[in-house]
């Protein structure tokens, strides 16, 4: 039984794909083409978007804001998180605001961002950066605060200095939390970049969705959605694997 479960079967996923896509094709053909598109139409639309270069251009715009915003979030979020974690009071003061920002859907602040940053690249960059940076710093702070007291005591019993304590105990202990923050931050960044492109400045892959919607071309929307989904899956899976690599660092 267990052996059966472990053996990866290609037939089941394949069957599932055939059924889903087959069903989609059949249902899609019978629905008003302004509302829905079967896979055959989506495929045709996809090759058109690719050959015209529209998709590549859109993806490039999206990636630029995504990667730059995320890189800035990592660079700012980690040091900020360390300060927040190491200096309890500072973290306590900031915590309610950070949680409030973290919990508020970003669409509702889009009008404010327009006022502050306009509707250009900077505004979209801010949407990616800010929420991602908060996720990273909150997690980093948690990692710094959650140093295992038993290991701190071990190092203390062997007369480690403060610097040695930081280097051999506190920092390695915080790494799994930081990596978890990097993954959550990436998820936040991906959502942020698309919101910016759909509601701030109609460009990039989010823009393709928005224009597909106004042009009543569901196939076009689905193409952009698929690209975003694949991109997001690759990024999040990679960070997820990184996170798992550091899992054993949390406990012995």
């Amino acid at each position, binding site marked *: 039984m267990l052996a059966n479960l472990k053996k990866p079967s290609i037939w089941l996923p394949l069957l599932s794909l055939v059924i889903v896509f087959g069903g989609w094709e059949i249902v899609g053909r019978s629905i008003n083409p302004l509302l829905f598109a079967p896979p055959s139409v989506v495929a045709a639309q996809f090759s058109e978007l690719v050959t015209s270069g529209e998709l590549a251009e859109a993806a490039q715009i999206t990636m630029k804001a995504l990667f730059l915003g995320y890189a800035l979030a990592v660079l700012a979020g980690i040091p900020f998180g360390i300060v927040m974690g190491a200096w309890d009071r500072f973290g306590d003061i900031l915590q309610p605001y950070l949680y409030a920002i973290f919990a508020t859907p970003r669409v509702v602040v889009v009008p404010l961002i327009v006022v502050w940053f306009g509707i250009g690249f900077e505004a979209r960059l801010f949407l990616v950066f800010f929420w991602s940076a908060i996720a990273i710093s909150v997690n980093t702070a948690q990692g710094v605060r959650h140093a295992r007291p*038993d*290991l701190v005591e*071990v190092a203390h*019993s062997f*007369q480690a200095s403060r610097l040695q304590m930081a280097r*051999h105990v506190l920092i390695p202990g915080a790494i799994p939390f930081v990596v978890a923050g990097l993954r959550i931050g990436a998820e936040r960044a991906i959502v942020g970049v698309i919101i910016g492109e759909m509601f701030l400045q109609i460009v990039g892959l989010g823009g393709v969705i928005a224009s597909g919607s106004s042009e009543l071309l569901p196939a076009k929307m689905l193409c952009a959605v698929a690209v975003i989904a694949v991109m997001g899956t690759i990024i999040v899976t990679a960070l997820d694997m990184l996170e798992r690599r550091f899992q054993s660092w949390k406990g*012995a």
Partner: protein
Amino acid sequence: MKDTMLETPAIELKGIRKTFKLSDSRDADTVLALDDVNLSIRKGEFLTIIGPSGCGKTTLLRIIASLEEADEGEVIVDGEPVTEPGTRRAMVFQTFGLFPWKTVIENVTFPLMIRNFPADEARNTAMRHIKRVGLEKFVDAYPHQLSGGMQQRVGLARALSTGADILLMDEPFGAIDAQTRELMQEELLRIWEEERKTVIFITHDLDEAVLLADRVLLMSRGPGKVREIIPVDLPHPRFDYDVRAHENFAKVRGHIWHQLRNDLVQQREEEVS
């Protein structure tokens, strides 16, 4: 007996008192964990400490290790009062205390590296003790790849390689299965018989307390006090014969159990009334 009286004790405790606050507020309730503990431990002595749960054994050991500060009293190591952890004392922790991000060799060299030993010297010393506890095949393994018994062998190798002559062990085999524990008791005693380090060893296990000790320190519940110190007259090396069948083993064990039992029964009666 006479010459040991003249020698400076490895550790002396004078009037150790410790209370804990149960919360941070100023008028918080307090618990008296240790009440006027006086004790003298000879160089090279193996002392085991046993007593009901919560009687202050861990607190006492942490105070000896200078990981906790006593409210009153003094800890004197080799004639010198101490207040900070030092290189003469090394701790073996109940939950092993290995760094999950360090390999076996890195864990064992940690205390030497902290003291800026040259890398190859630290490595040689560590390797010698890793071999001694039979883990030479696992030098580059991470703690999570090892069983509990193996992890504690690393903990022991780490303490030994510091060169400390006083080992402080808080239920080191408590989290290890019974058969492995027995084997590790034998290994520890063999190492002790070779090196005659001073060992203070806390345990919940009556057999273990008697099996290993030169003297058993019996603590009493509530405000932690030394109830009795029982010498164990059993020849060394102890694992060359069936120690448990020795009449002194049964005598000492029976005596300690009787005392512990009284304490526990009394505690139950107090709880009921």
